[in-house]
């Protein structure tokens, strides 16, 4: 355990823990678009920037991305100093120029009082902030179906050779966790299409509700030893089944006793 000071308050944390995790635990709100606790920190969006100093720094301070900064004893943190807010405003101003049609960015920028970009607006762009959260989550899950391709202006997230990715199972975690909801997928009755690949959705044999994709279920049975039969029925019908089978036992006992 170490002690540090955050916004004038003494806070305890584990040595080496990332500062953003401590801020979250202390319910201190710092924007963090590229962060997700399932994956290693990456430092792409820069929005989680905070001001740090130490007694021995004699008034000097530094600005670091809190998601990537391990805490140590005696650290003094300010999450919303004028300078930090100004830095965040600049980042959001740049984001606004690059992604003028992104509601998530507009909302956050608005919270920091940035309503119009002071830079030249990029035309013909998209809402991907290239934070790589989708690709990191896909890697973490063990699929690595997508990655960033190209560099500089041409950089984008895409499957290999920009073709329907063979390693994708259609779990949709990339789309589900994209901070700007840029990754699209189409749900059509019993099918879902993502990254231009179409997947069949499993349907509950009792009620017909769709659940996960067939490919995802097969992956889980093969690699995680989950009984393939579990996937045939939806969660709601499985609860009902459990009630009925337990009911049979309880009823049998009840009849025995009366």
């Amino acid at each position, binding site marked *: 355990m170490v002690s540090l000071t955050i916004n004038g308050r003494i806070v305890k944390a584990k040595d080496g823990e990332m500062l953003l995790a401590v801020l979250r635990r202390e319910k201190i709100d710092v924007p963090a678009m590229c962060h997700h606790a399932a994956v290693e920190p990456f430092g792409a969006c820069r929005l989680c920037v905070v001001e740090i100093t130490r007694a021995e720094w004699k008034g000097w301070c530094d600005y670091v991305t809190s998601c990537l900064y391990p805490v140590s004893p005696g650290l003094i943190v300010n999450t919303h100093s004028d300078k930090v807010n100004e830095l965040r405003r600049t980042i959001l101003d740049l984001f606004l120029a690059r992604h003028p049609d992104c509601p998530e960015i507009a909302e956050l920028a608005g919270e920091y009082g940035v309503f119009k970009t002071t830079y030249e607006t990029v035309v013909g762009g998209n809402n991907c902030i290239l934070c790589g959260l989708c690709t990191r989550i896909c890697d973490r*899950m063990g699929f690595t179906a997508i990655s960033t391709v190209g560099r500089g202006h041409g950089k984008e997230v895409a499957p290999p050779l920009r073709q329907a990715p063979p390693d994708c199972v259609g779990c949709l975690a990339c789309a589900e966790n994209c901070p700007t909801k840029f990754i699209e997928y189409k749900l059509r009755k019993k099918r879902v299409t993502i990254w231009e690949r179409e997947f069949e959705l499993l349907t509950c044999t009792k009620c017909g509700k769709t659940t*996960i994709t067939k490919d995802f*279920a097969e992956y889980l049975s093969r690699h995680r030893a*989950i009984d393939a039969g579990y996937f045939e029925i*939806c969660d709601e019908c499985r609860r009902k089944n459990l009630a009925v089978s337990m*009911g049979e036992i309880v009823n049998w006992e009840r009849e025995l006793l009366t």
Partner: protein
Amino acid sequence: MSYRFTVSPHLCTGCRTCELACSFMHAVEGKRGATRIHPLETGFKELWVPVVCLQCDDAACVKSCLVDALKRNPETGTIDLDREVCVRCMACVAACPFGCSLLDDQHNLVVKCDLCGGDPACAHFCPTHALEWKPIETVKRKQAV
């Protein structure tokens, strides 16, 4: 003292008070959460079974989670879902053989019973003692969940 959560279906009247207690207990930002416990009809007369996570030893939900968001809590013995880590892939929802890992679609969160961190609200509110939270010495072996 160590406590156990017990479910005695023959005492359940299907009043669904536990559902209310659960969803208020698991409210998110002041809005009611999805209930993790479901008193369901069995097809037998006057018999309901409160269906709730069994905190399995070799749990399918844990095995299915590719990002390790589901872990046994050594203090409560429950399998807890870390909301921050979960990527909402729905694997555990599809994998649990009892349908006890579920989607809270109001808040777009995957949720499961955590015994309220070790003092289940449902047991406190159950008017018929079909759900109980009691010292382990007083639990009959057969009853223990």
